[in-house]
């Protein structure tokens, strides 16, 4: 582990992203545009918009970073750069944390733009502190990144990696309680949702928005942290120094 290498990696990932203007613009502004869409889909139903809006601010970064990371990591594998890195004196954790830092920084900007547009321009209301929603949004981005990193090991092509979105992310959003409260779902699904990281991410965002800043929120934060560490450790095991 080396701070020098971790930071160099984060800088390199950000430089790559900066060169791709279109991706950067899509990452930063599409969530704000979608929030605008939601605002007018729920035109005249402000209570609904206020219920689903704040969690969405935090769920977008999860989805974006999941996708961006799985593709970026897949490219490292297919371009041979991962093999080169693995033959160099870089610790696996340097690489993973470098990616984590870079995408957390992008997520912070993304969530700030989304939150800014939603709360100030679209009139979204939350009882709780907006900054806390943004903090959980960044945490969610790191969670999405860690899961994307791990799952990318199971995709051989970019086509496959993109399909992991509907396969692994959409079910989590459906089961997290955003559309229907979890206790109203089929019992099996409720139990299943207990095992999914997005459930805790959504719960934390909903509680932060409702100003319910108690022990349950702290518990959510710990579980999210645990999922991040678990996904990073699993991700590290998919980075092999030796291959067949």
């Amino acid at each position, binding site marked *: 582990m080396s701070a020098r290498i971790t930071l*160099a990696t984060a800088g390199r990932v950000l430089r790559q992203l900066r060169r791709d203007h279109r991706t950067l613009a899509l990452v930063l502004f599409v969530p704000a545009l979608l929030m605008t869409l939601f605002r007018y889909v729920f035109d005249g139903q402000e209570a609904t918009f206020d219920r689903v809006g704040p969690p969405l601010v935090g769920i977008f970064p999860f989805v974006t970073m999941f996708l961006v990371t799985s593709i970026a990591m897949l490219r490292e594998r297919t371009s041979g750069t991962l093999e*080169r890195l693995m033959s160099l004196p870089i610790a696996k954790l340097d690489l993973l944390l470098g990616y984590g830092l870079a995408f957390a920084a992008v997520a912070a900007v993304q969530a700030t733009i989304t939150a800014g547009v939603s709360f100030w321009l679209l009139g979204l209301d939350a009882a709780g502190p907006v900054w806390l929603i943004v903090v959980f949004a960044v945490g969610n981005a790191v969670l999405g990144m860690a899961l994307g990193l791990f799952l990318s090991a199971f995709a051989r092509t970019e086509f496959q990696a993109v399909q992991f979105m509907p396969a692994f992310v959409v079910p989590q959003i459906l089961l997290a309680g955003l559309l229907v409260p979890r206790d109203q779902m089929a019992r099996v699904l409720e139990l299943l949702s207990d095992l999914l990281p997005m459930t805790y991410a959504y719960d934390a965002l909903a509680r932060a928005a409702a100003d319910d800043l108690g022990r349950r929120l702290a518990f959510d934060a710990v579980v999210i942290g645990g999922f991040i560490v678990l996904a990073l450790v699993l991700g590290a095991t998919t980075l092999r120094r030796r291959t067949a």
Partner: protein
Amino acid sequence: MNSVHSIRIRDLNVRRGGRSVLPGVSLDVRRGVVTGLLGPSGSGKTTLMRAIVGVQIVESGEVTVLGQPAGSPELRRVVGYVTQAPSVYGDLTVRENLRYFARILDAPDERVDEAMRTVALSERADQVVGTMSGGERSRVSLASALLGEPEVLVLDEPTVGLDPVLRRDLWNTFHELAAAGTTLLVSSHVMDEADRSDDLVLLREGRIVATGSPDDLRDQTHSDDLEDAFLVLAEAS
């Protein structure tokens, strides 16, 4: 670490996709010289090189580099490896690529400039690699391996598709590096390059057919031409 050989391989077995690619190879590579690894496509050159760098899963056998088992963490700083397909970031410039790899190796920034000069890319330092030709990309990949002043350089067909003038210059660089004590193992399938190597290893279907200097091999086979020598040796095996 005063041995004359920096790479030592004993009974190396590698299986890939259910078949034996290297069925029991033994080889010593001399320190401070350029060893050419010659053989047709599919003869196991890349697999042998990957085993030396320590990125290949091996079935059995022993590969020692600078006295350490291949792939040891201590070797990652002193063994440079260039894969056949250029492995650099297409969306970064030449300089950005080299700077990143230099940071990992803790090499000073001057090494980035020197490496670019060696592969004749100083003028293109700020060009995005993805917009370059195949040959230029391989040069960036080669430059990345020169950053850390490696003691052992393993180069998989580094001169494919390059201009003859640049190819000659690079081979001169290889010999300068060797004269300074670096061990180079360079794979190729071009005979005129073979002739520039100090030592040659001829590989065919995963077996070493012959080793020796180009002159040795010509004498051994009573041929004037290395291509003929290779044919004689291949048919005799």
